[in-house]
Every structure is written in C-alpha cells, then in structure tokens.
C-alpha cells in the first residue's frame, strides 16, 4: 500500500513539473586583456574570470586572429579562472570564443574581442 501511494505521489509530481529551462549560470565576470580593450603589447596569455567555478573537462575557449586562424596553444582551468596561452601576438584584432560548464552543471558560451597594438 505504501509503495502504491508513493508511486501515485511521484506520478503526480512528475506531471506537475512542466516548464522550459534557461540553462545559463557561469558568466564572464572580466578578462585580461579586458573585453573590447586595446593593449600595447602582446599579453602572452588571456585570462578569463567567471562568476562560478568551472568544470575543466567540459570548458574551453578559442582565440582567433582577424583572418580566423587559431592562435591559442593550450588552456588551464582552476576554480573560476581559465588561462589561454597565446605566445607572442602580432598587432591586430583578436576574438575570444568561450564555452563553459559550471560546477552546478549549466552550460554557457560567449565571445569578446580585444586589440593588440596602437
């Protein structure tokens, strides 16, 4: 009897849980170089700071130059910080596209640009 009542309760609850979801939780808080900024010399690495801790396995980013070629050589993630090695960047515009999974299991993505040189 208990099991049957429990099943009815669970069925009732499942029926009620109808909704669409908005899955977006870890957002870019700030970056170095800053979003949309211009830096005089190549930064060596791009550092992205997020609002929540990240899952390294399912998080990453790409840095591309104005012609669309990838210029990043590796990533490291610790807590809410993602670092991208880029070596010496020649003057020009660069775009950073990121996708992350926060530890509360929600995915987000975004992109920003920065400029190297005067």
């Amino acid at each position, binding site marked *: 009897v*208990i*099991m049957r*009542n*429990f099943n009815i*309760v*669970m069925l*009732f*609850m*499942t029926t*009620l*849980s*109808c*909704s*669409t*979801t*908005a*899955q*977006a*939780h*870890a*957002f*870019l*808080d700030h*970056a170095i170089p800053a*979003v949309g900024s211009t830096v005089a010399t190549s930064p060596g690495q791009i550092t992205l700071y997020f*609002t*929540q*801790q990240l*899952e390294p*396995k*399912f998080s990453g980013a790409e840095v591309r130059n104005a012609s669309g070629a990838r210029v990043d050589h590796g990533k490291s993630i610790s*807590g*809410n910080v993602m670092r991208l090695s880029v070596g010496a960047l020649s003057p020009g515009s660069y775009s950073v596209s*990121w996708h992350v*999974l*926060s*530890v*509360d*299991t*929600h*995915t*987000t993505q*975004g*992109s*920003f640009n920065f400029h190297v040189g005067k």
Partner: protein
Amino acid sequence: MLDPLISARAIHFASSIMVGGAAIFSAFAAPSLSEWDGVASAHAIAGRQLRRFLLAALLFAVGSGALWLVILASSIGQSSMAEAITDGTVWSVFTETQFGRVWECRLLLAAVLSCIVLLGRRIRSPNLRLLSPVEALLAVIFVATLAWCGHAGAGIGLGGKLHLAGDALHLTAAAAWVGGLIPLLIFIWPRHAGLHSLRPRFCVLRRFSSLATLSVTVLAASGVSNTWFMTNGMRNFLGTEYGNLVLVKIALLLMMLGFGAANRYWLTPRLLPTNVPTEENARALRLLCASVSLEIALGLVVICVVAILGQLPPPGHEHHMG
C-alpha cells in the same frame, strides 16, 4: 511541455527529502514502545512500514538520480541519451565533474543505508527507535549533500561556503517538515494495521508539530540567505523570473503553514485521549488525514518549483555575458 531534466530533478529532490524525512521523523516524532500501549506488535508493524517507505524513497532517489545524470550528460554533449551513454559522456560526467563525484558519494551512502536498513530489521530490538541513529544520520547526510549539486555548490570564496551551508541546512529542514509528512500520515491513518487507540497518534502529532515549527524557522532563515546570495543581495529579486518563482514558493509554503496551524491548534486537541473514542475524535482524525494529504500535495508542488528554480540563471548575472 514536459521537461525531462526538471522532472528528474523534481523526483530526485522529492525522494531524497523523503529519505531524510523518514529518518528525522523516526528520531524525533515516531512513537516509543510505551506509547503503543505496550503493544510490541504494533510498534514492529510501524517500524516495518517506515523502513519500507525509506527503502522505496531510496530506490526512487537512486533511479531518478541516474536518470538525471544521463539527461544531463546528453544535454552537455548535445546528443541523444543513448549516444551520451555509448560515447562515454555519461561516464565522464560521473567521474570528472563535481556533480558526478557528489553522486558517487551519495550512491555509496544509499547503498550502505539500504544494507543497514535491510539487515537491521533482523537484529533490531523492539525497544529501539524505529530507525537507528546511524540510519538517521546517513539519511540526513544523503539529503544535505544535494546542496553540492545545485547553484550553492558553484559559489566562490566565503560567500560561496556560506551559501552552501545555508542550502544544506535548507534541505535538511525541508526533509524534517515536508519529508516527514508521509510518515506522519502513515502513523495517523485511521485504519493503521497495528494501531487502534488515539493516544499514540496524539503524541506523534504533538511532537511532529513542534519539529515542523522548528523546521519552518530554519527554512525561513536559510531561505532568506539563499535568496540573498542568488539575487545579488535582493537587488535582482523583484521583477525577475527567479524572484517571481520564489514568491510562488513562499505563497505555497504559507498555505502549507495554514494547514499545519489548523492541525496543531484545532484538530490535534480534538484527539485528546478518552477512554472511549467518540465520533468527534474520529471526525477530527479524518480531517487531520485530509489536511496532511493536502499539505503533502502542496509540498510536492513546492519541490517542483524548486526543481525549476535550480535551472534558472541567477538573476542579475545575465549582463556579464562578455
């Protein structure tokens, strides 16, 4: 449309809360042997019922948790559930994420708890509580560790730790009140197989009522703390989807409180033990069962709201998309 991830979360939340609720009910509200008018058989029947309820809740928790894991992996890998299993995404999520590691611990807890409950029925003395302190402790840890699977588990710094502690407390308090309602209904049910007098029911109701009052206080305090962290110090509360859902949750909880107050101050005193149960006693008991049933239904709707809240972005953070 039915969202499978929210459904799995809701079932998992509800069943986990009931695991904790059964344990806390046993520790603080269930009748002792003397309250059963010295009838050991009635006590034994009640113990069996509570253990069956706990095992059923554990089964649902493990099943819905596994479903949650597969649906989540399929969502992360943007593939079908079958592909997520075959291409290793489910395994990666299980072994390489915080969600998965917390799940490993909780799965182990569920297995140990099930074994203790199954073995305990053979060795338990009728003088003991319906569930042992070890069983109760494991069940409470099982529900409290759910906090690591939600928003609170992703916080940073001291604020993140406080948020996590508040959420674990919130879940435990929810288990004590909402999770204890079905065990309460089992014990006060008029046709309970081993129970023919009103006295044990009266004692159970009084103790549960005091427990629920304490739980509501903790729920309110930890709820304010959680909302504070989630809405940037309440600055992004009003006018957001998240804030509106929290208001719906509060309204539902106030309705539950109304039923709880009616049970405590109006119906329970009408069960005061008499030598011969009267028609008024019987009517009050029927009304109590109806009232507790409605509280359970409202509690389940609240859990569905919580399952949806867990999927919403924290209000006020969306503008940082970079």
